[in-house]
């Protein structure tokens, strides 16, 4: 059943607080994998929620009861695009050191000592922007095709193809890196 659009501001604020609590981690995870460091990810997350607060009532009206996560991620996506355009930056190639931030994050410790996971993360950064974003949404945020399509402004079919190609390209990148490293190892074995 569709929840009615709140009529007074306190109710609207309460709904926004629910949205914030439900999706803070999603927005932060997306931002982090998008920009590659915690400092900029924090700025991006903050700006995303400020923008979302400003347009929340309209988003509720226009969503027709559909989940608002794709809308939030689309805000983060647009802000990240502006961030790179304004500062002429590219995403950082490696995930930064956990020591840079004030609280522990899970990713760095998870990847520590796992070469195959490090290779995958490095490969993700080499993908074209749209493919990288689709993978982040699917695998870090657990979004389905329809949600990703809404966040990226594409059709469901185009999104399915995009995801498929992204995974295949990433596999090739990782295999190529692996292939470049293996001959050295085999040489040692042969020697």
């Amino acid at each position, binding site marked *: 059943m569709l929840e009615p659009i709140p009529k007074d501001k306190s109710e609207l604020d309460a709904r926004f607080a629910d949205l914030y609590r439900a999706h803070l981690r999603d927005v932060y995870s997306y931002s982090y994998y998008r920009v590659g460091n915690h400092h900029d990810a*924090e700025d991006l997350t903050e700006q995303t929620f*400020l923008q979302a607060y400003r347009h929340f009532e309209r988003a509720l009206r226009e969503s027709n009861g559909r989940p608002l996560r794709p809308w939030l991620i689309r805000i983060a996506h647009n802000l990240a695009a502006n961030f790179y355009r304004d500062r002429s930056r590219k995403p950082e190639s490696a995930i930064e050191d956990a020591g840079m931030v*004030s609280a522990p994050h899970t990713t760095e410790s998870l990847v520590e000592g796992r070469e195959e996971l490090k290779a995958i993360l490095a490969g993700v950064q080499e993908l074209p922007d749209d493919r990288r974003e689709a993978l982040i949404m699917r*695998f*870090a945020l657990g979004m389905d095709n329809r949600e990703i399509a809404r966040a990226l402004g594409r059709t469901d079919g185009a999104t399915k193809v995009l995801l498929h190609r992204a995974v295949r390209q990433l596999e090739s990148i990782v295999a190529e890196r692996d292939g470049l490293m293996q001959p050295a190892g085999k040489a040692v074995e042969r020697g």
Partner: protein
Amino acid sequence: MSASAAEFESLLREALSPVEPSADLVQRLESTLVSLTELAQEELDSWELSAMRDPRNWVRPAAAAVVGVSAGTALVALRVRARHRTRRQQSGSVGELARRTLRDVADEARRVVSGH
């Protein structure tokens, strides 16, 4: 899906695990959002017109008004409001206080627009 493809996607899911925001970010963001909700439209609506005669009160409706403009300018409101007490102590007269307040709002708006 082949076994190797499924295995690769499983590794990908592990590599791209969700990232927890720091406690500092959570605290800062929640504090900002609470401040925004405090600067509610009702605050502006219920503002007594008579209070406008006293320029020492101008900062509150000015702050509430900019929240309606954009989230970016809402930051202006928060910063200006935070410095209001200092200005009151520094101002020798009511007229001077009003001038400083309005100048601060304009300066902060310029800073936010220029991204500083």
